[in-house]
């Protein structure tokens, strides 16, 4: 039997209780790009309305919204292919690196869609969600040393994806330039 769709009061309550943590989650994952964060949060809520009107209000609206937001961020960065300009902006271990800038967040998020889920989750937890090694180790029920090792390997995988992308971007630009020169 289909659940009752929520009325305006229930929707407003869910909206007011979840909007700030939802926005903060999305904003952290897009390097604070306000325009992009607002677009994605709006998309998530429109999707939520369509689903909740059909299936009823979920027991944990925030959990539903955060899962949907994660998919929205991943989908967005799968579609866009950022141009890699500054190598220092994408070295996860360099002092200059911070995902707290739209360009760096764009590159890292795009690359995260191309590594294994376990690696992506570790990098998200440490660099985007601000969790410490200890917190991650406690959540996964393993030692801090094991997490440090896994994080190191995850960063290496990410760097390889970004390096390959930089080479392909360079090759694609050269190919495009050669084809326009030929036409010209």
């Amino acid at each position, binding site marked *: 039997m289909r659940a009752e*769709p*929520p009325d*305006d009061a229930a*929707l*407003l309550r869910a*909206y*007011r209780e979840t*909007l*700030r943590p939802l*926005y*903060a989650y999305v*904003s*952290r994952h897009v390097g*604070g790009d*306000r*325009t992009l*964060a*607002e*677009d994605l*949060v*709006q998309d998530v*809520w*429109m999707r939520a*309305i*369509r689903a909740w*009107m*059909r299936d009823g209000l979920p027991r944990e609206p925030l959990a539903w919204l955060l899962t949907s937001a994660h998919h929205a961020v991943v*989908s967005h960065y*799968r*579609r*866009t*292919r950022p*141009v890699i*300009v500054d190598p220092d902006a994408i070295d996860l271990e360099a002092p200059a690196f911070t995902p*707290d800038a739209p360009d760096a967040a764009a590159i890292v998020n795009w690359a995260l869609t191309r590594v294994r889920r376990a690696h992506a989750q570790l990098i998200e937890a440490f660099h985007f969600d601000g969790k410490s090694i200890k917190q991650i180790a406690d959540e996964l029920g393993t030692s801090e040393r094991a997490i440090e090792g896994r994080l190191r390997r995850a960063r290496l995988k990410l760097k390889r994806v970004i390096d390959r992308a930089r080479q*392909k971007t360079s*090759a*694609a630009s050269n*190919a495009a330039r050669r084809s326009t020169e030929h036409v010209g």
Partner: protein
Amino acid sequence: MLDKHSPDPAFVDRLEARVLAEARRQRQAPVPSSWWMASRLRIVSAAAILAIVSMGVGAAGVAAAYQVKTNEQRDLITADLQRRLSLARQRLQIANETLQSAQQQVAIGVVSQDAVMDAQTKVAQSQAEVESLTSQLAEARATGQVAVDDLTAPAVQGHDYVGDRLRIALQVARASLQTTQAALAAAERRRALGITDQVPVQMAQARVAEQQAAIALIESKLAIRQRLLNGAIDQQQAALQGLEADAVQRRMALAPKLQIAQEQLQRAETLMSQRLMSSVDLAQARLNLEQVQADLAKADLDLALVRAQLQSGKGGGS
């Protein structure tokens, strides 16, 4: 100063209004399943259901919004609005100070004109928030209820509060259009310099189109509202014409996204043939295109259902 990862209060209010509007739209125009749309008879039946549902929701909405008034309820609602209005005025003051600072910095060459434009947009949004809350407070004092933003709501003691707030939203939308157009110009400059490729320009173009569609929607709703209050149409007709305007706006906003998705697929196919892109990326580009096409088909369906109902004579002309 707004924390980087905190939402802009004006965005919070705008999205809240959109969430409620979308929820009402979903209640009035439920999506039929594919088997339901198999026959012409079922299409006509779906339109009839839409009319019945919209009549029921409209009547119940009016009755619920203006039910028993109590002084205590009025006081609670107005106290909350006054608190929010006070905060909004503080934000407006901060926005004005930020604008003045940006103008001074541009004059001495410390920041670019973009900073002034952003600050001007922020002032416009903050001003609109103050005006909207003032309107809500006035309506709450008159009715003892939370302000209603339903297109079919009647005037309150001869005053059209819903129309007032639509006009405020229109001002904000026009200010936002200027900002998105400036962002498009900036993206085009960066592309011309070779700093980025075509994708950011296309996305900026899509945002401009979306903003233009939003402006057209508010203008349509204001016209519908005027016809309702003049008695040219009734509440059911106004509800249907509002749904029609929503569907038209969605089509306008989706059209450039469809073009972007088609070009991205072509680009992906070219890169794939040169072995510069993986099959996963190509599949993702195809899926993106199909999703936009599905959204556009949904908007076309909603528009066809509503127009069928309007043309059947029960909805009048649009």
